[in-house]
């Protein structure tokens, strides 16, 4: 009994330590961001390697918080790096797509093998979203950066609202599957390790889901962000796929959607290796740590911190676009 109490005390200590570290990390991201925005002019005297190291470290920390908060790294990357680093938004969006793409590619194989991503559910959505992401990328590169900044700020504030208000349903109630999902056999079985049982699932409201994926793909291409924040609610709350299948399939869809948009940025010359590669490596290393911390961090606390961080970055993007806080 004493050993049990001691072990519980140790776990509470570890939990407390991890959450305090995370609080400090978030506060430092806020402080560094605000300091950078206030004090670093565009033509900074900092050498190139200083920026590369700062970018790598920022992405490493973003990767840590991205996993437990349940948002993709790309959603955090674009507003934060776009708002507080001297890089043009075109290059930030190009790098953001690659960050989201690399994370999705790394997770894809195990999600498919575990049945948490479903090819039959993903392909119809991915085809439409890929095509619209091309349109989004082309429009994003054709319109002035200030307009993209304003739209980005408003979208991030919308995401913050969605994150704060949206509910999730682990196993949504789905009546009869609709005709389209039946015809495409958009159903499946996966093994839920937590419950140690096989879960059968099917979906409904497929036509509306497909329509929404057109819009989601467009936003992904326009802003260079992964779109897990929108994919998961559509798959889970609208179409009725179980939460784990929604999250896994959403990640897999990004492998196709973000690669289409990434080609447009690459062909246009909007991908600079010096920005994209340290971001990808930093985010992936951070995500590895974040996945390990998943068991000790309190997800709701991390989620609230990420919402605050996004709120700050969204307001910053909006004010930057409006020329108020440049």
């Amino acid at each position, binding site marked *: 009994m004493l050993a049990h109490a001691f072990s519980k005390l140790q776990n509470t200590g570890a939990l407390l330590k991890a959450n305090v570290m995370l609080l400090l990390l978030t506060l430092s991201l806020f402080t560094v961001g605000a300091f950078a925005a206030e004090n670093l002019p*565009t*033509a*900074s005297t900092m*050498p*190139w*390697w200083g920026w590369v190291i700062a970018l790598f470290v920022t992405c490493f920390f973003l990767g840590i918080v991205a996993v437990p908060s349940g948002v993709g790294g790309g959603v955090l990357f674009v507003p934060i790096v776009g708002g507080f680093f*001297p*890089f*043009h938004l*075109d*290059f930030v969006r190009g790098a953001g797509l*690659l960050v989201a*793409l*690399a994370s999705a*590619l*790394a997770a*894809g*194989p195990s999600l*498919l*093998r*575990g*049945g948490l991503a479903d*090819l*039959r559910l993903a*392909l119809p959505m991915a*085809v439409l979203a890929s*095509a619209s992401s*091309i349109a989004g*990328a*082309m*429009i994003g*590169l*054709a*319109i*002035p950066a200030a307009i993209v900044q304003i739209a980005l700020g408003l979208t991030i504030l919308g995401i913050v609202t969605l994150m704060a208000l949206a509910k999730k349903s682990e196993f949504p109630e789905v009546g009869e599957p609709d005709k389209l999902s039946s015809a*495409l056999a958009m159903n*499946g079985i*996966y*093994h839920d390790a937590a419950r140690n049982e096989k879960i059968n699932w099917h979906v409904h409201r497929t036509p509306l889901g497909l329509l929404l994926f057109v819009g989601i793909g467009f936003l992904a291409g326009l802003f260079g962000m992964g779109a897990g924040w929108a994919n998961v609610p559509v798959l889970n709350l609208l179409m009725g796929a179980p939460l784990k299948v929604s999250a896994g399939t959403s990640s897999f869809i990004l*492998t*196709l959607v973000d*690669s*289409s*948009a*990434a*080609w*447009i940025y*690459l*062909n*246009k*010359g*909007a991908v*600079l*290796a*010096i920005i*994209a*590669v*340290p971001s*990808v*490596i930093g985010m992936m290393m951070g995500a590895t740590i974040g996945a390990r911390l998943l068991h000790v961090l309190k997800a709701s606390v991390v989620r609230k911190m990420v919402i605050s961080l996004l709120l700050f970055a969204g307001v910053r993007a909006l004010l930057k676009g409006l020329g108020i806080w440049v």
Partner: protein
Amino acid sequence: MNQKTSFISVEQQRYATWLSWGSRSGLAVLIVTFLGYVLSGLPARIPLDQMPAVWSLSTHDYLLKTGAPTGWHWLNLLGQGDFASLLGIAWLSGCSLLCLLAVIPIYAKRKDWVFVGLCVVALLVQLLAASGILTVGH
């Protein structure tokens, strides 16, 4: 085949295998070429110490100032560190193409023509994006 994978379709398992190889090799190429760029002193079209002067420009102004290539012309400049690093990026962006190609025969053998069609359309969309035909500008 264990309990966890017994209900995963053959095409999904094949897609996963190809995706795993494609993404791992792409990441390796990305890291090796980037290290070659920043550490080994490979010649670069835009020297690293001049990057801060151009990375705050819009793509349009950056292309005008540096004469950097668009489309697939960077392939002609693979000997230069900044463009060699794009190889890994293109690899990662293109690795889904092979995965889609790999599952088409499985759907075709099962006469699942709808999914054959979906894979073909997905391939065409990816190829169209990669082709460089679609041009935009500020």
